[in-house]
């Protein structure tokens, strides 16, 4: 291992386990388990029907294996589909949250006590299969913004949920989306009413804690006409020898002139140096720019997971709508990532921008896979794609699979790609100016990722920097 690689391969800092009494449903998946989850969540009949329908589709589907990743078979009957910390009657206020949970999130840098508010951020904290706290709900409600666990939205806002759930990612979209639709347990629900600019950054933090469980979260964000919302998710999990499955579905809907900015800082446990353990992160994320001049922007910083399979995309349906995807994906040790985006242009003068930065170190394998599809009616559509790969050491790999499907001759497409390697000469140059080897790597990686980091909300740019061990260029503040 070179000295440069050693700088990048930092130990995982979030691998602790919370010792809390949990209620865990025995492993296995069948209709009874789904009924049990639905009952535990106090769901209406239509929701249970939807779950069972998804399950029946899922059993007939096969796990996809076209991604450029390798892993052994997953035994879906060995996974527990519901784990929740035991608790008494319904919580009336945040002060009733189990102190162990408060402490857990605090350790992760996520304050769920409102007096310790993270500047301008409301947080929904999800622990295994349940949301344990959502902050600043009252404050948000003043402007009509709904921000709550999705299990609660199903009970309290059934009309909105029924209208939008599955409208962007239908249950039969793919194998993992079908599985999620059948068994999802919690996640966040956001509704921003017409013309409202959400006064706080919204954030959900997902923590897997229990052993031999999967986490199947579901997020649904609706931005009504002329509204704006910025949302961020973060995640982590304890260090374990076995692999754990995380199969989430995220759906976004933006109406006329609405903007949704969705940022992810993904730091699931990546497994150890030998490739033992780690999260399988098989996620379907999609946004629909339903309205004219609507905009959906995905920004992701992916440093964790043993295997990542995700392609946050945009369906650009409204005329003049805009889709964006900014991504930094880091694979080190034996991590594998196959990630990218899908931009589907339906409306006229729709525009999409893709900026993907892949960093591979150790024996990591990093694949960018992207689809840009311009359909017949999308007159004047434009896409700009930029895929850059950086290699650290000589045992890692970078791969790029850009798919382009254009069915309208008025479309404009631009694609740029580059591959670079951090070399000893580059490090030596910076050390000769007085920087430590560690700071030299940070500076180079930071410069490489700059176009993506500047898209993150300021509070989280600092988090991303910490994750990659990177000192952010004066851009913060």
């Amino acid at each position: 291992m070179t000295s440069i690689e050693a700088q990048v391969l930092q130990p995982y800092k979030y691998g602790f386990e919370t010792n809390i009494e949990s209620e865990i449903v025995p492993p296995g998946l069948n209709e009874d388990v789904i009924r049990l989850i639905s009952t535990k969540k106090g769901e209406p009949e239509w929701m249970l029907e939807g779950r069972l329908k998804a399950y029946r589709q899922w059993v007939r589907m096969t796990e996809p294996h076209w991604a450029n990743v390798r892993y052994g078979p997953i035994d879906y009957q060995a996974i527990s589909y519901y784990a929740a910390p035991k608790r008494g009657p319904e919580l009336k206020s945040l002060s009733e949250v189990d102190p162990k949970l408060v402490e857990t999130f605090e350790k992760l840098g996520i304050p769920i006590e409102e007096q310790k508010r993270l500047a301008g951020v409301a947080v929904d904290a999800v622990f295994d299969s349940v949301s344990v706290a959502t902050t600043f709900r009252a404050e948000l409600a003043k402007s009509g913004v709904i921000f709550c666990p999705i299990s609660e939205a199903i009970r309290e806002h059934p009309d909105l949920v029924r209208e939008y759930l599955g409208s962007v990612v239908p249950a039969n979209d793919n194998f993992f989306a079908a599985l999620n639709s059948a068994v999802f347990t919690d996640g966040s629900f956001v509704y921003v009413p017409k013309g409202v600019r959400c006064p706080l950054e919204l954030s959900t933090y997902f923590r897997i804690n229990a052993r031999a469980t999967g986490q199947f979260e579901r997020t649904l964000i609706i931005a009504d006409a002329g509204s704006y919302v910025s949302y961020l998710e973060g995640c982590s999990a304890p260090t374990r020898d076995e692999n754990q499955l995380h199969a989430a579905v995220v759906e976004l809907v933006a109406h006329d002139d609405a903007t949704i900015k969705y940022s992810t800082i993904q730091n699931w446990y990546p497994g150890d140096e030998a490739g033992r353990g780690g999260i399988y992160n098989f996620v379907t994320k999609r946004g629909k720019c339903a309205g004219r001049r609507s905009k959906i922007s995905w920004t992701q910083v992916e440093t964790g997971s043993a295997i990542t399979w995700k392609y946050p995309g945009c369906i650009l349906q409204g005329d003049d709508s805009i889709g964006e995807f900014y991504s930094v994906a880091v694979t080190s040790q034996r991590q594998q990532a196959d990630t990218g985006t899908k931009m589907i242009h339906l409306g006229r003068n729709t525009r999409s921008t893709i900026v993907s930065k892949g960093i591979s170190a150790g024996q990591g394998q990093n694949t960018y896979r992207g689809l840009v599809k311009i359909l017949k009616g999308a007159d004047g559509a434009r896409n700009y794609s930029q895929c850059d790969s950086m290699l650290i050491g000589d045992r890692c790999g970078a791969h790029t699979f850009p798919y382009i499907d254009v069915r309208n001759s008025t479309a404009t497409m631009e694609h740029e790609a580059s591959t670079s390697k951090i070399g000893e000469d580059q490090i030596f140059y910076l050390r000769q100016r007085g920087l430590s080897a560690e700071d030299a790597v940070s500076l180079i990686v930071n410069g490489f990722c700059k176009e993506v980091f500047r898209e993150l909300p300021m509070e989280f740019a600092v988090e991303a920097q910490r994750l990659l061990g990177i000192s952010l260029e004066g851009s913060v503040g």
Partner: protein
Amino acid sequence: MSDAPMLAIRDLHVAINGTEILRGVDLTMDRGTVHAIMGPNGSGKSTLAQVLAGHPAYQVTAGSVRYEGRDLLDLDPEERAREGVFLAFQYPVEVRGITNSYFLRSAVNAIRKHRGEPELDAMDFLQVLEDKLTAIGWDDSFLNRPVNEGFSGGEKKRNEILQLAVLEPKLAILDETDSGLDIDALKTVAGAVNKLRRPDRAFLVVTHYQRLLDYITPDFVHVLADGRMVRSGGPELAHELEAKGYDWLRDGAVVA
């Protein structure tokens, strides 16, 4: 400060990938002096410059280098830099996405921290930068461009000298700073270097051609051939080399 010379190289042997490049180099430099190292291609000039700065690819197989009385070879590259050793690279590298001014501030603060001085914030640093630019008579046109990215050969070399001006080293090593420069750029760079000469700063100027020494007048000229110093003298030696080439020295070395 000790009475030891700024730099004392004794019988230095250096190899890369098992091939010996330097075969017993001796050199002593005092504060405030300018030494030129000349020599044909492949003589080991750049190797000497890189070894003094601590490039990890080279192995010192014998000999010693003392810098202000301390063992220089014992220090990491960044420690050498923080102690005042500066190398103006023959081939400066690019750092994408990082502006020159941010890079310079990081470097200055690394050095200040090492000296136990408070770090400079962006505003204070800007003032320092402007003072330095004024001192060498340059404008601030490439401060906000990424480090060396898209720079012409001449701009890269100028950037090295700007870094020298800002980092204020005690020992500045210029590795073929004149290569690839047209005469106007050469004058600009040499002019800046002359303005940076100080009684407490020594320069080691590595060059293939005498023309740089028309603008930066050295106190001493040394000729390196086949990894050994074959001749030392005053500035007139450079002119002699210009007239006669290097071959007569090499032959002489064999005869001697």
